[in-house]
């Protein structure tokens, strides 16, 4: 657990005069479930995009899966998975075809695609649906499928950007079971969420306010520190001080 999946030091992103991400420093251990919290517009997405190799930081340093975000974006991309808040499978493709497509662009062989596909469909209990168009599945199933597809190439780290938005509590619970399974198999989870009950599921969480990380600890320690009963109160105590308005 000592190996660091993500190391971030004074990472900053400016858009003109606007400092979207302001000198953030943190690190995430391998196999950890790291909750990345913050109000809308606090800079979570920008920070995540830099870590995923989608945009260059203005200054600071960061390494993801041991690769530098400035110089080794391609290597980073090979070692991470990503699931966005928007549902991101192809609705006009079947379950099987989506698996083949996403596995395929990560360079899995046909043999691997077949095995992984079978395994995944069995795990999600989707045997009867594997030939259905993804667009016809209920939202909860889609999200679970999207997550499984995002880790089909066994990445070192998976970034989840509000993965459970609009999903019912039961499905959310099942979704988190999948996350725990993935973490057990050694995949580091980096997750943003607006649900404070989900924050409690994380090993550690950070809370971003106005581009800075104002708090970073285990949920239990944070509650103690802010003498709060729930994460809701912790979040509210911190986010109340925000000067930026949500976008």
């Amino acid at each position: 657990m000592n190996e660091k999946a993500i190391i971030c030091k004074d990472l900053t992103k400016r858009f003109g005069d606007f400092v979207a991400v302001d000198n953030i420093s943190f690190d995430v251990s391998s196999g950890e479930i790291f909750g990345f919290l913050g109000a809308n517009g606090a800079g979570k997405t920008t920070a995540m995009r830099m870590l995923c190799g989608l945009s260059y930081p203005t200054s600071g340093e960061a390494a993801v899966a041991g690769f530098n975000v400035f110089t080794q974006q391609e290597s980073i991309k090979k070692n991470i998975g990503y699931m966005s808040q928007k549902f991101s499978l192809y609705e006009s493709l079947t379950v099987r075809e989506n698996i083949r497509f996403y596995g395929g662009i990560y360079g899995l062989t046909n043999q691997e695609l077949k095995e992984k596909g079978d395994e995944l469909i069995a795990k999600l209990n989707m045997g009867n649906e594997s030939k259905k168009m993804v667009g016809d599945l209920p939202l909860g199933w889609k999200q679970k499928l999207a997550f499984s597809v995002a880790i089909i190439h066994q990445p070192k780290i998976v970034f989840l950007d509000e993965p459970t938005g609009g999903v019912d509590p039961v499905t959310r619970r099942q979704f988190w079971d999948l996350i725990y399974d993935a973490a057990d198999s050694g995949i580091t989870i980096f997750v943003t969420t607006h649900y404070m009950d989900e924050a409690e599921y994380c090993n550690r969480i950070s809370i971003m306010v106005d581009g800075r990380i104002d708090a970073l600890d285990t949920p239990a320690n944070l509650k103690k520190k802010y003498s709060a009963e729930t994460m809701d109160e912790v979040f509210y105590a911190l986010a109340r001080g925000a000067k930026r308005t949500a976008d």
Partner: protein
Amino acid sequence: MKQFMVFVRKEFYHVFRDRRTLLILFGLPVMQILLFGYALTTEIKNAKIIVIDNAKDVNSEQLIAKIRASTYFSIVEGDDMGAAFRKGEIRCAVVFPPGFGNDLLHGNTAQIQIVADASDPNTAKTLTNYLTAIINDYQQSIQPMVTIPYQIQPVLRMLYNPALNGSMNFVPGVIALVLMIICTTLTSVSIVREKENGTMEILLVSPFNPTYVVLAKAVPYLVLSLLDFIIILLLSVFLLDMPVRGSLVLLFMESTLFIISCLSLGLLISSVARSQQIAMLMSMMGMMLPTILFTGFIFPLENMPLPLQLISNLIPSRWFYFIVKAVMLKGLGFGAVWKQTLILAGMTIVLLTISIKTFKTRLS
């Protein structure tokens, strides 16, 4: 390479499962060809006319029979020409004066009045020309002996299209139009759809190179557009009797070049448009009108004012239209179209460079 093929296959799934795309892809060319081939034509057939025969003699009867026999006119009954014109029931009227035959045979000059509805000047001119030709024809047939000394006799020869078949002109135009619309619309819409659905983000986070995303998008549409080109070609050869006099290989190469230039245009649109609807509007409406106006297959470019002529130079389809006509109808080789090909290639390179650049800057 394998990743690339995975992507291309996915793209084909999209096309064949989307009824709207299929309709644009295969419905549009067939519809355009049928429309231009059978419905829209500048020739006039069965124009309604009234004949008022105040002479009622052999000569007027003969002439009326000749008019009746022509496919251009259909004679309607009636004798109030003014009312018929006002109601728009007729296009044209022919009036024989009393004693027409007598004047013709004995007085050396006979007159026929032709009245046309010139609110549509082109039609009026065409109809009166047809009538004049019929009358001249008749005159010659009854006076075969008369030869006028010092006569200039023009000998006409219509090159490349002796039958003056209208489809010769528009088929190359339709090919240009259809390819332009299909390539730009489908590429732009398919890329914008990935953006809208959030799948583009996933693709960009994957190790799949962004330039490959663009290329993998382009390849299926290039193939499908060539398929479209073949369909149009088959339809026009077998349905509309179009000749293909030049090299088929050259025709295909030129079309490929044109398709690539349209694909890059579609790519450019996709980087500006935010939603599928906007992309569709921009490429369908924004491209359709300039293509129809400035390609030259409906409105002759020579007649346009200079600024418009200059603008027309910027429209790729204009050059492609010239090339198709030269190769298909005139049977010319590369030597005759190298200049146009070069212009088209230049445009393609510029468009492609700009669009890949904007695509990349948009990402960062």
